[in-house]
């Protein structure tokens, strides 16, 4: 297939100045509209001519989507806030270092300067079969080209696969799930709040979407409750190139300790499935146990139960086990 990378097919461009105007446009154009925040994912799709929206709604002029502010019982981060702004924000660094660390490991400085947190959590999967424009399940077809005997699927799913084996590539998503964040979604019908854990959708529920955002809806902000402020955090990302790359796997955890034992914990792994997976069984198993090698070993074993390797991604299973072990026991550099 000839791919032309220098020009995009024509579309109607809107640059609303307010959230209200953006929502009105989304309501008017529905599934014909493409939401563009930082453009880091959008331009790939548009230049490759795989997605051909009739309308692009550029959110760069919506000032109210940007910024981080303290609210009652936590922080509210505008969905249009850049990843760099999150990394540098003293409130985030002070209370929610997990998110700052995750955001700092996204791609490269240039991309973090332009990319937004809303875009980072809502970005599409990087499965190249899907992004090549073939009619796979995720594109509305009836096959997963990445789950065939000859597929190149080193980066694909080991858990939660249901026909499609694509994974979620976000670094900030697992951190937000671990922090028990809420996503603020606005549409013509009003505002709804969705827990970060439920914002991400697996192929078993909807094989063509990665988030709960329906046509006509806009992610406007992310609220992080103070529940986990100042907790012990751990974030680790494994990637092929440390300069910049998508995760092969990443892990995020937030824990509180009491009397030398784990009192409360949330632990989330991403790039193992099409949605960040909160490891409920691991959490239940380690609460009340001391933070040591034995507990870490137990957590690692439980984490990989049910994991199923494809042809080229079996390495992800021991990698996931080890990341969960490290998250439990910490490596001395956790925030």
């Amino acid at each position: 297939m000839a791919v032309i990378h220098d020009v995009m097919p024509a579309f109607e461009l809107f640059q609303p100045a307010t959230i209200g105007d953006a929502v009105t446009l989304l309501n008017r154009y529905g599934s014909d509209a493409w939401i563009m925040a930082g453009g880091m994912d959008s331009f790939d799709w548009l230049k490759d001519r795989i997605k051909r929206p009739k309308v692009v709604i550029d959110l760069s002029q919506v000032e109210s989507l940007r910024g981080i502010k303290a609210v009652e019982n936590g922080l509210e981060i505008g969905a249009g806030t850049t990843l760099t702004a999150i990394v540098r924000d003293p409130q985030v660094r002070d209370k929610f270092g997990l998110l700052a660390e995750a955001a700092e490991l996204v791609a490269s400085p240039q991309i973090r300067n332009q990319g937004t947190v809303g875009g980072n959590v809502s970005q599409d999967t990087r499965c190249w079969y899907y992004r090549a424009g073939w009619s796979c399940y995720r594109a509305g077809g009836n096959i997963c080209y990445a789950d065939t005997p000859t597929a190149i699927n080193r980066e694909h799913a080991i858990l939660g696969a249901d026909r499609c084996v694509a994974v979620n590539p976000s670094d900030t998503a697992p951190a937000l799930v671990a922090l028990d964040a809420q996503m603020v979604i606005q549409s013509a019908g009003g505002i709804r709040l969705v827990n970060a854990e439920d914002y991400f959708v697996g192929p078993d529920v909807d094989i063509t979407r990665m988030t709960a955002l329906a046509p006509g809806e806009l992610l406007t902000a992310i609220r992080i409750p103070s529940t986990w402020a100042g907790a012990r955090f751990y974030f680790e990302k494994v990637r092929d190139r440390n300069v910049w790359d998508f995760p092969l796997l990443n892990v995020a955890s937030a824990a509180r300790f009491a009397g030398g034992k784990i009192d409360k914990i949330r632990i989330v792994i991403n790039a193992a499935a099409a949605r960040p997976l909160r490891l409920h069984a691991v959490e239940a198993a380690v609460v009340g146990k001391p933070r040591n090698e034995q507990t870490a070993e137990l957590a690692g074993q439980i984490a990989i139960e049910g994991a199923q390797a494809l042809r080229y991604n079996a390495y992800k299973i021991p990698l996931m086990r080890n990341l969960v072990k490290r998250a439990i026991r910490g490596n001395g550099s956790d925030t």
Partner: protein
Amino acid sequence: MDFVKWGLNPWGQNILTHVSWTLFWASLFAGLMFLVAHGSYMLLSAHRKRPETETDRLEAAHANLPARVERHSLMARLFHWVMAAAMFVLLFTAFLPVVGVQIAWVTWHWIAGLVLTGSILFHIVHASFFLDFWSIWVGPKDIPEIKAELLRELGREVPGPKSGKYPLGNRLYHMAIVVAGLSAVLSGVLMMSRVRTPIFTRNPYLFGDVTWGVTYVAHGLAGVGLVGLVIAHVYFAVRPEKWWITKSMLLGWITRRQYLEHHEPERWRVTANPPTSRS
């Protein structure tokens, strides 16, 4: 309006992928319109039933028949309700996501599909060896009955034959459900080779892209067809004048009078009670 969806395979060929969900809405609309049309017809038409006096006469003449006539054996009823449950699970899991209800539907769908397949296989064996196999089919021999039923529906009093064990509508519906149901089951079993189940080893290359496309379209067409057919079936099951049939699918029997009113004793023979020793 598109009836089917096309896609592009890695070789740049256009391939069929699915039916358009427009057909689902069309089938739903057609099913509901049929209800409105039939309901209106039943209110306004002059369709003829067998006169009560004639039924009285028949009942007097067949007093030796049992008071309760078995219409559906326990096995036949079990098959029917298992199949009905499986069909509802299949339709809801298939189409709730289409109307925007997000559920993890695939596992429930293929499990219900296997239950339906098993019940159909059972039914084929049961009907072939333990029931009157031909009583449910419609053929050239039924033309006089079809003609008589049509004339009665138009308000004419005609002496033509009544139904055998199954009313004409039952038999026509059975033919439609055989076509749609078997299409859905056969294509569905093949499609299971593309999903992870503990039963089949996945083999996405079982067929080429074109054959898979045809299989998916056949499954979709059968599925949307079943939406309309099931709506019609449920509608007739709850209509007051058909309630005696529905009741027989629950209890297994109909009364002697219902048997004589709606059926032709010559075409559905019921064994008479043996004469008592005093007679």
